[in-house]
């Protein structure tokens, strides 16, 4: 059974059709990159997968959950599906460890001591053990994003979604975040990521999907896709340096 199954999904915002029949699958342990121009529907697709947006038609299954808009189903689904956003979205009033422990504590009833161990574990995973008691505001963007990843990992997700997690970062800080993601990928995490980092997509994702105007325009093994684009749109996109 695929970790993510998307079947003929249509999504409209009012009269604007943003996803026009998207189908794809992600197998367990697979890393899939989503690329495409601004406005092509990449973020919307990710947000549909964890139910932040409702779809008009089609079917989405992820980590064994069928995505609908029932709040109870959504909560169960989101325990298994992590998402990391471009803008980190750490909670500013909580320390790094409190950010990480919040959901395990209140949605999975993990005892405090165990939650702390968990927080230390995931912080070590992203190389930020020493920031346990810091507040997000006192961290660099790259560090905040790594904490956001750690916060997701603390849920022990089966699938991780990443939406342009390095786009808000200064160039010298993107590397540390990409490194963490690469480590995750090597560790066998199932990942679906929207990225403008073409090198990362080429080298880390086994499959890359090019979205254009709300459709999957072209997809295939990353290296082939980049070295031998079939459609003029992808060729343009790749040669334009991805932006």
């Amino acid at each position, binding site marked *: 059974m695929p970790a993510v199954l998307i079947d003929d999904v249509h999504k409209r915002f009012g009269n604007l059709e943003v996803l026009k029949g998207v189908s794809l699958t992600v197998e367990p342990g697979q890393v899939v990159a989503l690329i495409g121009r601004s406005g092509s529907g990449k973020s919307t697709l990710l947000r549909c997968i964890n139910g932040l947006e409702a779809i008009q038609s089609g079917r989405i299954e992820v980590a064994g959950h069928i995505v609908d808009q029932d709040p109870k189903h959504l909560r169960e689904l989101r325990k298994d599906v992590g998402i990391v956003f471009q803008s980190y979205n750490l*909670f500013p009033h909580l320390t790094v460890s409190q950010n990480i422990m919040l*959901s395990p504590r209140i949605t999975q009833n993990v005892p405090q001591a165990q939650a702390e161990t968990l927080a230390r574990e995931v912080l070590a995973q992203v190389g930020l053990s020493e920031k346990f008691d810091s507040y997000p505001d006192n961290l660099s963007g790259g560090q905040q994003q790594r904490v956001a990843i750690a916060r997701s990992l603390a849920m022990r997700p089966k699938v991780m979604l990443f939406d342009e997690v390095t786009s808000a970062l200064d160039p010298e800080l993107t590397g540390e975040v990409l490194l963490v993601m690469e480590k995750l990928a090597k560790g066998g995490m199932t990942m679906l990521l929207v990225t403008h980092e073409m090198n990362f997509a080429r080298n880390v994702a086994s499959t890359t999907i090019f979205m254009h105007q709300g459709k999957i325009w072209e997809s295939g093994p990353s290296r082939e896709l980049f070295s031998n684009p079939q459609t003029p749109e992808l060729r343009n996109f790749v040669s334009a340096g991805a932006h």
Partner: protein
Amino acid sequence: MSLQFESVLAETDIILDGIMLTIGLSASAIVLGLIFAVLLVALRTLAGRWAGIAVDCYVELMRNTPFLVQLFMIFFGLPLVGIRMSGTQAALLAMTLNLAAYATEIIRAGVDSIHKSQLEAGLSLALSKRQVFQYVVLQPAFARVWPALSSQFVLMMLASSICSFISVQELSGAAAIIEQRTFRSFETYIIVTVIYLLLALSLKVFLLWLGQRLFAPVSGLARVDVKAEAA
């Protein structure tokens, strides 16, 4: 004109009792009103449309009628439906209900100011809407509107003087009694003015201190301090 404070100062006991009652009433109304306000905001944010409309109606009712009239409605009206209470109890109830309405409006603005991405981050971590409100939204919202809330608290403390209209002997009520006994109106109110001023300033300073203690990591002010220290 000669000012004579001796006879007024001879009534220090009444003044002190008045001060204590003003502080007691204000502190209780602030705490109770704030709790009530948080419940109302939660209701408005989380419960359905009709609950929201009911909360809005309550807020508008309290904010668009004079406090004195609200006080009279409670003090003279409630006994008619069989609810008896002392003047002090009526005063506390009126102050609480009045403050709750203003605080609801202020906190709601704070809640609305929290960026949608914070809510989505909470929901994406499998929190329920109530949990997002409680753990993600409430504290930053409070931090943002704490200055506005603080002003409202001070205004309420000053408005407690109106409760002397139903013979509650808080500071203004105490002043009225002293005035009758000594016939030294001007001196009495000079002293009362100074006391109110000191109470208001102390409350303001206390609230500022409290806000910094409670909300340090989320307030812009504290952030600047941290950076300044690091530099």
